[in-house]
């Protein structure tokens, strides 16, 4: 697939390979969890699978943590046996790789590793 899903976080346009996007859901029912780092918004159970929900801006750019209001789009991502739910500020849509000059392309594996590093520093 030659497209990426572009979303906004911390005033930046970020793209992830569309191949790794499982689903985008609205009005997700996220369970907040105590004693977790600021970027961690909670868990989401979708069709039998549990996703860790992480705030895109907080994990990628250390933007201030946000309060979940229950009305935002969540990007469910799956790759190589991993899964993560990403909470962006907004979702822009699918864009071919070739047309994403102003978009920072991020690999979901890097997002996960960054989140784990942050959690290690937090614990």
């Amino acid at each position: 697939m030659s497209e990426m899903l572009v979303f906004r976080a911390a005033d930046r346009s970020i793209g992830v390979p569309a191949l790794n996007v499982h689903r985008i859901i609205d009005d997700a029912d996220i369970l907040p969890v105590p004693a977790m780092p600021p970027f961690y918004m909670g868990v989401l159970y979708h069709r039998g699978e549990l996703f860790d929900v992480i705030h895109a801006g907080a994990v990628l750019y250390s933007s201030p943590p946000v309060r979940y209001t229950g009305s935002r789009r969540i990007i469910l991502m799956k790759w190589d046996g991993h899964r993560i739910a990403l909470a962006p500020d907004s979702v822009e849509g699918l864009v071919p790789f070739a047309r994403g000059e102003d978009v920072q392309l991020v690999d979901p594996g890097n997002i996960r590793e960054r989140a784990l590093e942050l959690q290690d520093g937090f614990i």
Partner: protein
Amino acid sequence: MDLSKYEKIFLQESGKYFRELDQLLMEVEKDPGGLELWEEIHGKVHSIKGMAAALGYPSVSDLSHRIEAWCKAFQQGGAFPGKEAVQCLFDGLDALKGLVAAKGVVEDWGTHERLRTVSELFSSPPETLKVSEQARDPGSGPVSSGNGLPVSGRGLSTAAMDQVRVKYGIIEELLGLSQEILSLERLLPSISRKRLPPTTRSWVVHYSSMLKVFYHKLISLRLVSVGDFAALFSRLIRDQAKKHGKAVKFDIAGEEIQADIALLERLREPLMHLIRNSVAHGIETAEERLLAGKNPTGGLFMEAARHRDRLFITFGDDGRGIDRARIVSHLCEVRGLDRRAVEAMPERDLLAAICEPDYSTSTEVSDISGRGIGMNVVARTVKSLGGGLTIESKPGAGTRFTIQLPVTLSILSAVTFRLGGYTVSVPTAFVDGIGKRNPGSQDGGAGSSGTLSAMLNVDRGEGPLYRVKIREAGSGDGTPGESRVLVLEADSIVGNESVVVVPAGEFLSRAGFYSGVGVMEDGSLSVILDVDALFRKARSSNGGAKLPAAISPGGAGEVRRESASTEVADPEGTQRSHVQGETGG
């Protein structure tokens, strides 16, 4: 002896037989009384059996033998092969084909189950098939009911056909869909419900309750018995014993305990590894065992037990045990540890050293008569499942590996409560009591010392209304028989109900407080506390472990700093230790 040449011949010959058998069965389907046909079928199955036995494929020869017994009965007129019986033979031969192609080795759960079903089918003596006078007349053809099946009392018992094979993925999909429907139902605003006419409201309630039952029934499809799981290893044990020239038996205890197939499947590789090591290095040869005064047949065992929210699977042997001296030597010479310190190490810690990565790659591993090869892989797998591994070994007596796991997907009874905007559950088995906090009491009030809220750095606002007392029992802290009590505060109690436990993901597992996520009957979620971890945290919090700032769900990013006092008391209340630390980040 190199058997590969003969295996190739066997595969070719049996392939030819199977093609001929297919043809023959189609002929007996039209002419079930054809005795010459049955004689020919019998002969070919007998040949497959003989070749398999010669090559050491007992599963193939065993199934062939059972099918052969049926053929013999039909051939001798002791039973009449109705349409269903012939179909069973087709199924049996298909299973035999698969088994031959796999050289008698069953590696996946689905195939194992199919073979078990087929074997059980052919375990019924052919004499149980009833024969009618009409059917003995070869010219009359089989007597059948209007739908073509044999009449009652003839052919097969329908009990043998009461199972179907279902792909694991389909069960997962059904679970997910039903859970989503439950969530949708929960999203119906309560105000809308109140406006519904009574009959419609009643319908909705009935529909919801049926859906919940449906969901929980689906959950039970994922549970399999440990006995069935353990049986998968019988062939491996037999092969390993033969390879190393040893006699070994395998006993299973607690086989009736049920566990999530997804969990057991993850344990398959680690257990296979333990078995290989045990047979290769643990169990002595028959001569050595006789000299040691032991039974020449070595014993392997697997025990399963369930205690509260933990599943314990123990694998062990009665062999020579792990060579402690070798471990000491490795720790001193390779890791550079002080010999006196190493020799003073508790036995459990010393044995745990064989799970370290550098130990398994030691060049001395081939000389070590204990477990060294790949044990770190075993330990990592167990850890990734949120569990623990304990090793016990006695020289000359044997070794035990106990894998302790949080019960993953299963239905667990839990007390669910709310604290500071979070929904938390504790397995009911650990709950000692729930009570209301006295308004005038010091504990649990805002700004005062607390337990769970302090450990989890939860903003308790006005102060909790309830106290949930949990008790730890067993050797959670390495001291068998001693119990501890911990008081958790709660703003409100949701209830004591069955929750479906979903394994904690990567991030939750690393937090160290949670054993999973619970899906309640109405589809809502809660985090399930790992009670053992709570007690460990409570005991260690006097080390000044700082808890990071957290965002409470109802407020902005507020960082709180407060002293935390954690009360850990023994059940008699005669000894109390207060552990103080500071929270905040």
